[in-house]
């Protein structure tokens, strides 16, 4: 499939799976409800019909088993792409992910690499009941051996997933579920972005917003609103949390001297904390103010009626920007 088309993120991911399955007969897709139903978000819609039950199939309901099966299939030469139904429902597979997926290549000194992808719909903003809105990226990002990727646009969802499937290493692919049904232009002919590169979504002179996944849209809105108030904010979309693109991020921060990190997950010991720490370590003498973070609170994801108060929104981002000691400038 080539040429620009209007696609939702769910469709863009479906396209990526299809194109990968077309291109490489060893790509197999499995998980809970990914077969005839096409996944609870319809991301795998039609794959069983079009590629057969051998290439896309439902498993028994057991996440550790699913990831463990993927490990074994990758050992035996296939490229499994598995779906965890929701963020919190990947936790039963945690031991498999941390003790095996992440470590297999290292413990076998590169003899057994696991080219598998674990797709996880994550984060909130969809009014889901408890356990359906966790932002679980920090658990994976902290685990050496995993590559952790999260798209913010539908084009990136396509391109990054293609790249993730091609990577010889295991990838945790985090899909911001609130974007699943947003439509954007996607051109699958455009080159797949290399994993590990951030992208400057918006250049800005005054301060840099650093975000990823579902928070990129928030950062862009904040930047737009700030512009109407005469402040020129840049936005960097990390795309890949691990590996981290220090170069792109630090170049922007050094230019502006001010930064705010935006992320939905609770802030404590989070990816946002990492960004603050590493940007500060690397850009200290360029900073006019401490790097701030606007994150979820350190509480479990709240019930739907309260999520608007939990989620870092435009106002909270702009408040943080306001606190970047502009008087001193």
């Amino acid at each position, binding site marked *: 499939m080539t040429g620009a088309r209007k696609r939702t993120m769910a469709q863009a991911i479906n396209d990526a799976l299809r194109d990968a399955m077309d291109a490489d007969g060893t790509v197999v897709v499995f998980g*809970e409800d990914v*077969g005839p139903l096409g996944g609870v978000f319809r991301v795998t819609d039609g794959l069983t019909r079009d590629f057969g039950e051998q290439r896309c199939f439902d498993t*028994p309901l*057991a996440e*550790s088993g699913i990831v463990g099966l993927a490990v074994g299939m990758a050992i035996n030469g296939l490229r499994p792409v598995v779906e965890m139904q929701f963020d919190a429902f990947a936790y*039963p597979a945690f031991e498999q992910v941390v003790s095996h997926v992440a470590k297999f290549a290292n413990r076998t000194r590169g003899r057994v690499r696991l080219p598998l992808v674990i797709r996880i719909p994550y984060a909130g903003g969809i009014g889901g009941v*408890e356990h359906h809105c966790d932002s679980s990226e920090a658990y994976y990002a902290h685990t050496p051996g995993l590559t952790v990727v999260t798209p913010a646009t539908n084009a990136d969802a396509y391109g990054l997933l293609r790249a993730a499937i091609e990577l010889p290493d295991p990838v945790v692919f985090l899909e911001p579920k609130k974007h699943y049904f947003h439509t954007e232009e996607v051109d699958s002919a455009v080159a797949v972005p290399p994993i590990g590169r951030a992208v400057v979504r918006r250049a800005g002179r005054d301060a840099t917003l650093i975000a990823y996944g579902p928070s990129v849209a928030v950062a862009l809105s904040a930047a737009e609103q700030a512009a109407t108030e005469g402040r020129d904010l840049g936005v960097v979309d990390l795309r890949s949390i691990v590996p981290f693109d220090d170069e792109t991020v630090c170049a922007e921060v050094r230019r502006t001297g001010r930064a705010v990190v935006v992320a939905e997950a609770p802030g404590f010991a989070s990816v946002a904390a990492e960004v603050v720490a590493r940007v500060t370590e690397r850009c200290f003498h360029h900073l006019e103010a401490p790097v701030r973070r606007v994150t979820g609170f*350190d509480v479990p994801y709240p019930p739907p009626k309260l999520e608007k108060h939990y989620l870092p929104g435009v106002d909270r981002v702009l408040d943080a920007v306001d606190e970047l000691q502009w008087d001193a400038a």
Partner: protein
Amino acid sequence: METGTVRFIERDGGLAPGAGAPPPTAELLAGYRAMVLARRLNEQAGALVRQGRLAVYPSSRGQEACQVAAVSVLEARDWLFPTYRDAAAIAARGVDPVEVLTMLRGDRHCGYDPVAHRVAPQATPLATQLPHAVGVGHAARLKGEDTVVMALCGDGATSEGDFHEACNFAAVFAAPVVFLVQNNKYAISVPLARQSVAPSLAAKAVGYGMPGVRVDGNDLAALTVVLGEAVRRAREGGGPTLVEADTYRVEAHTNADDASRYRDDDEVAEWVRRDPLLRLRAHLLAEGALTDALEAECAAAAEELAARVRDGMNRERAADPDEMFAHVYATPTAQLVEQRAGLRAELELEGS
């Protein structure tokens, strides 16, 4: 291992040959009434979803016999561990259905007080409630109490590691737990055949060294007898039982699901004919036990329930942002106090 399926009342309402005496008619009448209420709750909740008052509702339509029997065999001091699909069972236990549904309206993670009712919060992460149930039961035994715990899960959940660990712990500790698997044939879209190729789910009991019984899950009489017996054994120190109820999820997984993608209408129609209410009704009518007056009373009680639910669901509860911070720790940490203050300041600014 019991390989047959226990049934007392046939689909036409007649007694199954050789099954023994069903429970006393008064009990069956009470069960019938409870099923009528359970059905009405399922219907009302479905209507509220269509009206946009409820975000989502996983209906137990077709499983009302299980919902009612699981609770009717318990004493007040016993515990129930339900899943997201067991709202009707919780209501049958005496919890205000409005409180039950506040979770699905998005107000709270759990709308009722688990301790007051001895009903655990509805579990969403599959099978994770089962080890809790064992823990409650084992603690009761250590404390010398004769509490029994009824732990519910679905057919799909039996594939999870936690199901295995819980069953095994219960058997090894002879914990007073009854595991009731409502085998409604689907885990969302995944049919039983993709979940297990064992002769039955009850057969799994063998591997734990506990009794396993398969029962007709649309036969309230059979469920009451089988679950009652399991509860009695557990209470007397005889350890856990695994009960598989052969039933069917008549509606889609939730309103968000599209069941036409993975099953035929014919299959559903066949199970609708096995409806647990119709069956017990036929039986009670044949027995001459169900009078018009009683039917009218059931119907009236059901309407009253529905009205209370509608009323409760239409009355908005104000969501208090402070709630996010109040219960995470017994004493909020300095960090949470700071974060709460930040949010309050934001809201004041907005409000002003």
